[in-house]
Structure formats: C-alpha cells, structure tokens
C-alpha cells in the first residue's frame, strides 16, 4: 500500500481580483479536502503586488486549517526585479517554496524545497540531480506519458512526485503578452485586460473549435485535463501528490470528488458524472498521460484503470 495520497491545489494562474482570490483561499481553508496549497504569482510579475498584502492572512488561515502552504515563484524570470522576488522567498527560512525556474532551485539548494511543473524534469538523471540539491517534492511536466511517470516513480526514492490531475494544461510561456496583443496593447501598457477572463481568454480556430486559452504571457489548453480515472494507477506507480489547478468552478466540490475517489469511498463512474456536471467550461482531456495528443480524451473502455 502506498503512503497516503495528498491532494494539492496549484497556484491560481489567472489574474483574479485580489479580494476574490482571498475569499477563494478562505473557503479552501475552511471547507476543502486539500492537503497542500500553493500560493503566489507564477505567470506575470506585473500582477504580483495585488495579492501580496493578503498573503500573510491567507497563509495563516490555511496553516491553521492544517494545510501545508507552499510559496510558488515566477516561471519566467527576465529582470532584476523579478529575480528579487525569488530571492526574497528563498531568504525566508521558514517558508516552503516551489521553484518554477531553475534559478529558484539554485537559491534553495541544500534546504528542502519543491520543484514546480515549469522546470523540465523528463528523466531519472535530472530528477536525481534536483533531489541531490534538496528537492523533496517534484511536480512533473504535464506532457509526461504514463511510461515516464512509471520510471520516475521508481527513481524518486524519498522525494514525493506530484502530477496535475485537474485543470487547463499549462502549455507555453512567453515574454510577450497575448492578452495585451489581442486588445491592441503592449505589455507595458496592458491595462490588466487579463482580469476579464477568470479561466483565460478563449482562443478558437477559424472554424470555431475551442483550441487554447490565453492567460497573459501564458498559453493553456482549451480542454481541462482530468485524470480522475487514472488516479489509482498513478498511486500504484508511486505518485503521491495530485494537483488540482484552480479554475472558476466550485473547487471545494472538485476537491471533494477527487478525494472521494482517492479514498476509495466513491464509485468512479458516479464521480466522473458529478465532475462533468460541475465543470462545464470545456471538455476534458487525458491524452498526454496516454502518450497521445494532449487534447485527446481516451475513452474509459479503451484502457483499464488498474493497469
């Protein structure tokens, strides 16, 4: 039997108003079956200052509720001001930090830390180097197929591995802001138009098919990844942490569904049906896990969840 699985909540990737975000986390603290909560701006440093005043009270409430709080760094660090935010996190000895750029891992070397999903860990050689540097949990890139997860699960030793099991797939980062560009603006004078789209700005093909979602400088999938059906197999492979990416749906209810399946309490088919009912912003996908197009949804009957 593998050790108790942890359900985690990745950082909010979108530009939600600070008060909305605060209330979201208060509710997570009070009501959600989540073990680990990641806080912090990962995508755009221009947004960082909005939520910062709320971080102490939000962290405290989450910690009081028994949740592990992890502070996530920016994923793309291009200037001194951005570097300074990472340095400040790394310099606070009592903070647990998720490094989303290798610079964060370098600053945290020698003390326990989390490697975020924006650092490229594709194989056991890389995993070993990062664990040697002090990583005690590694969040794996979203495109890894089950075969890679299996190898990494065996190679992880005492380090925990985390895989994203719910939410839009974070596909790309850029220096350029596509939200601003779509509004005929530049990044420097962006007017924070990204705030209009709590799940990202829909980007469709010319034929009207949902394709991608734009979140400022980040591009995500249109589909929402769901690995509800794959949870049991993931646990068998030695994956211990399961990440839900916040979307503008009832995340407390989403967490409840995943926790119910992880605990073996709930029937899988019923849980899937409830998840589908709850999450109507886009169809689900699980293609990357199955080694196919990330946009694909491999139907339940074409694979056995037990392996």
């Amino acid at each position: 039997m593998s050790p108790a699985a942890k359900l985690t909540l990745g950082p909010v990737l979108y530009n939600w108003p600070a008060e909305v975000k605060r209330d979201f986390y208060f509710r997570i603290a009070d009501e959600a079956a989540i073990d680990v909560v990641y806080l912090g701006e990962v995508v755009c440093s221009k947004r960082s200052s909005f939520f910062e005043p709320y971080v102490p009270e939000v962290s405290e409430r989450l910690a009081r509720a028994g949740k592990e709080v992890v502070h996530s760094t920016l994923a793309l660090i291009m200037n001194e001001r951005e570097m300074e935010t990472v340095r400040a996190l790394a310099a606070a000895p009592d903070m647990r930090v998720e490094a989303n750029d290798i610079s964060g891992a370098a600053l945290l070397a020698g003390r326990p830390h989390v490697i975020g999903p924006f650092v490229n860990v594709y194989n056991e050689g890389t995993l070993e180097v990062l664990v040697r540097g002090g990583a005690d949990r590694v969040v794996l890139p979203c495109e890894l197929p089950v075969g890679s997860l299996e190898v990494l699960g065996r190679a992880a030793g005492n380090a925990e591995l985390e895989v994203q099991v719910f939410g839009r797939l974070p596909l790309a980062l850029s220096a350029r802001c596509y939200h601003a560009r779509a509004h005929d603006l530049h990044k420097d004078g962006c007017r924070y138009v990204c705030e209009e789209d709590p799940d990202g700005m829909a980007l469709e093909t010319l034929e009207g098919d949902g394709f991608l979602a734009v979140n400022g400088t980040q591009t995500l999938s249109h589909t929402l990844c769901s690995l509800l059906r794959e949870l049991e197999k993931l646990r068998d492979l030695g994956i211990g942490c399961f990440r839900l990416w916040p979307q503008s749906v009832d995340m407390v209810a989403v967490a409840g569904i995943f926790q119910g399946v992880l605990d073996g309490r709930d029937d899988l088919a019923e849980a899937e049906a409830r998840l589908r009912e709850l999450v109507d912003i886009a169809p689900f996908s699980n293609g990357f896990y199955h080694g196919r197009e990330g946009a694909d949804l491999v139907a339940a009957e074409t694979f056995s969840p037990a392996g």
Partner: protein
Amino acid sequence: MSGTPLELVCPAGTPGALRAAVDAGADVVYLGFRDETNARNFPGLNFSRPELRDGLAYAHERGCRIYVAVNTFAAAGNPGPWHRAVDDAAELGADALILADIGLLDYARRRHPETRRHLSVQASASNPTAIAYYHEAFGVQRVVLPRVLTVTEIARLNVQIPVETEVFAFGGMCVMAEGRCTLSAYATGRSPNMNGVCSPASHVRYEQLGGRMVSRLGRFTINEFPDGEPAGYPTLCKGRFVAGGCAGYLFEEPTSLDASTVLPELMAAGVRALKIEGRQRGRAYIAEVVAAFRRAVDAAARGDPVPPLGLGGMTEGLRETTGAYTKTWR
C-alpha cells in the same frame, strides 16, 4: 565602435549544407544526429556518425569549428540514445556540445569533462542566477540566450555572469520561451522537448474547401488562404485564430527574426556569438545567409555601418522582425 568580431554560428542539416556554411565564412557550424536527441528531428535531415567525422575533418582543415546539439530531454527509462550522442560527439572531437537536459549535462560533465559544454536555448536560462547554476553545477562555458530578452536586458545580464553568451540573429523565431512550449504536443502528440519536432509535417494537412485552402495541424485548423494565395506552412504559433470575435495572428505573424540591424548594439552588450537558425534549410539558403552575415559581422567589428543584408527574399512570409530584442515586441 570596433572590436572582436562576433563568432558566427551557422546551421547545417546535411553534409552539403555544412560545406556551404564553412565555405561561406562560418566560424562554427552546429548540427545534430539523425534522431530524437536534437531539436530539429526532421525526416531526411541531420548527421550519421561517419558524416559527422567527415564534417569535422572538412571544417577543422578550414579553421572552422563544429558544435553538436543534443538538446532534447532524454526519455525516462531510455537515456541510451542521448548518452551515446554525447559520447560519440565527444569522442569524434566535436568542439562543443549544446545541451539542455540537466541529467544530460551532469552525464557530459562526468564522462567528458574536457569537451566544452554550451547551454542550449532549450534550457530557457534567462537570468544570471540560472546561468550561474549551470556554470557551477555542470561547467557550462556558454549559454544560448532564450529569445525573450531585450538588448538592454542582455547587456545587464552579461556583466553579471561568468560565461559567454550566444544569441539568435536570423531565421525562424519561436515566440514562446524555448523548451517551455508543449503547444505542438497538445495538437499532435509529438513533443518538441521529447521528440525534437514542432508542428511536424507528418501531422500537417491541406484541404481545399470551396474557394479556400485550409491548413491543419492534427485536427486543428491553423490557417486558411483564399484560392490563388500561397498557403503557408501551419506552424502552430504563427497561425490565425479567433479571440474575442476577431480573427488574427494572435501569437505572431509568419515573420522571421532579423537582428542584423542591432549587431553593433549586441556587440556593445557583450554578446560573444551570433546564431543563425535553419538546420532544415537547403545549401543555397545557407550559403547566401552565411555570406551576408559574414559581411555584416566583419563590418560591425570594424566599426562600419552594417550593410543591408539583402535577404528579403529569404525570410518567412517575406517579413522581418527584431523580435524580443526590442521591448515593444512584448
């Protein structure tokens, strides 16, 4: 201002292109093996081991160096092809390895400490702390900078790091941070990081639909063209999409990078080498682009104005951009 010429690092996907680049004045030719270990894993391209041996001899006899890119991320459970690529390149006498994967950098440092290690653009090292990490942990001596930095940011970076920098000067341009983009894998299941391909031809289809030509990647429409207009290749991030009711090139127009107009600024910013993209290009293209950049680099080194390259016909969509080197691009 005058100074040491920028090192001109030129692409080759075939032995013929390698000779063309050397003959046209390249200081360095970079190339990869014919498999998933390099980020230009296209059918019919790249080098076998004997071809690399011959290429090394041809280049070295003419004072030119060869860098070998092993710059995808090794597959979990199957590091063999990547380790062999590093071993063979080092043993055949490559002048440097261009690497991105941390596990592979570690392997190369342990097994071939005497072979120079450069950090590929695919590692996306965009700040001094990241670059210092790769230098200290793996002895990296040069970093190819991601195409996300402005010239001012590059200048600031160069005074803070203990290694040389190489920047992209011409050719195809990723608009996303390299090594951190899985868009193509989302649409095709073939990954830039794992398989070394982006928007692969195997997944491209053109379809004639009542007065227009539709280009698709996997099952997604990337662009459409009225009859009579040339249909461009459906590179995902250069496609036309709809957002907020408007159709347009949401990420980037089909442009090429051309940094020739900022060569003096790049020199002043402390850049050591210029990289030309295009290992998938033919001999004629390589010869013309390399020769034009040879003239430009030498002019800049003498402190002369950089002559117009005259490469308008060579660029994608016949348009050029200085890309991220200018802040307004963002």
